[in-house]
């Protein structure tokens, strides 16, 4: 067993974990944060994407012990005062999901992308989410949603909430 201390969606947790426990298992099975899902379990599909110290990672290919001392942000930590994050809202508004399984990872990766590139072209969005597979939508509305969110998050845009980009959990 190893003792780890992490901040997840703004709350501090301390736990003893087996070294082989994956971060995604820790989030789901220990913390009950089932918003982060497991698709492939082999670092391919991106469904399990979370932010580790502000950067997107695949939580199925990170050990919980590797997150010791770090801040983790999951899709569950995005809303503020009952308001969806602009990227969540844009996925809703643009029908960017069908079964919804890829959505948590898509949203977390899109927020990482917009942090690096606040105004991406369609091609840049497609490249930015290359590590997230969707088996339903054909990606069209996902790309639209990310570009829509980018517009809504621009300084001066009449967003219903402050334009927080990568720092959703800060």
């Amino acid at each position: 067993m190893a003792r780890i201390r992490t901040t997840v969606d703004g709350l501090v947790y301390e736990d003893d974990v087996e070294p082989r426990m994956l971060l995604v298992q820790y989030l789901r099975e220990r913390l009950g944060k089932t918003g982060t899902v497991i698709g492939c379990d082999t670092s391919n599909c991106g469904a399990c994407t979370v932010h580790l110290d502000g950067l997107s990672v695949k939580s199925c290919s990170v050990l919980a012990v590797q997150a010791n001392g770090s801040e983790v942000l999951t899709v569950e930590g995005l809303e503020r005062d009952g308001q969806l994050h602009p990227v969540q809202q844009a996925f809703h508004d643009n029908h960017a999901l069908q079964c919804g399984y890829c959505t948590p990872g898509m949203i977390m990766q899109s927020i990482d992308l917009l942090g690096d590139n606040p105004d991406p072209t369609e091609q840049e969005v497609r490249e930015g989410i290359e590590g997230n597979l969707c088996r339903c939508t054909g990606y069209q509305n996902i790309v639209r949603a990310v570009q829509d969110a980018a517009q809504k998050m621009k300084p001066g845009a009449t967003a219903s909430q402050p334009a927080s980009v990568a720092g959703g959990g800060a």
Partner: protein
Amino acid sequence: MKPFTYARPSEASEAVAALAADPDARFLAGGTNLLDHLKLGVVEPSQLVDVNRVTSTAIEDLPDGGLRIGAGVPNSDLAADPRVRERYPAVAAAILAGASGQLRNMASTGGNLLQRTRCVYFADPTTPCTKRDLSQGCSAREGWARYHAILGTAADGCIATHPSDLAVALVAVDAQVQVLGPDGARTIPIGELHRLPGDDPTRDTVLAHGDLITAVDLPAPTPAVRNSTYRKVRDRASYAFALVSAAVALEVRDGTVADVRIALGGVAHKPWRATVAEAALRGRPATDDEFRAAIAAELDAAEPVRSPLGGNTFKLPLVTGTVVSTLRGLAGGTA
């Protein structure tokens, strides 16, 4: 996944000593390759020694105009560094051509160079594989060999290719790998880090157990290296490993090739420096005919695999087309 213990030392020497003391221990950097192999049962370590506290995450200027890249530098940071993008464009392009944003955020420079082959049989312990176990045969030779080697292969044995895009670009720019081993520190030219399978395909590199990569040095960029790029050809436009790739650097003066570097990915057990083609081109006119003749000379030694499930003879024209069009683009024509 089999249970293992976990250590996170704060000194590089401790990490090296931990491995030296335990033949079944492994270094852990980003884990993006190793964790998949733990889940699949390809490796079953007794202990993971996390090297994140003992490998630098800094990219430092060297006195000669080169750069020292700490082994812990994430792939995403390396690709975004303005000095790398400007002086070594092939290196930045190679990283961005590989994996995905999430993986590049987590993956380290050292781990990238030491990632294992993507041969599907290697990753599947239920199929025979000489690289996993010397007592077994190779499943790829009579199986799915589309991604496999055409150069540096023996009559039998492993035909796996090295999967790293970054390593191919580093070979083209003559990087030097800094290593700390149980007997002290040493420097290995990147072209000598990876090895051909020979009679021991279980070893991808010349490193011994316990050797820790601490940094990768890029020598001061030559005019050719400043005019370099990375071209990757794959089965889909993004998020796939290379069928064939080329890191190419070219300096043309008065229509003549003054300097050229060509490293190929997806063709051999190691990133393949095309020294025959380079020698054939130096001092020659920078024309398509010369480019084509030079790469044909390099491929003279090629031995593609003809397997019942689809071999890889298609790689011969693919390498030729890729190298010729990349050289043409760097010479100022349309790629």
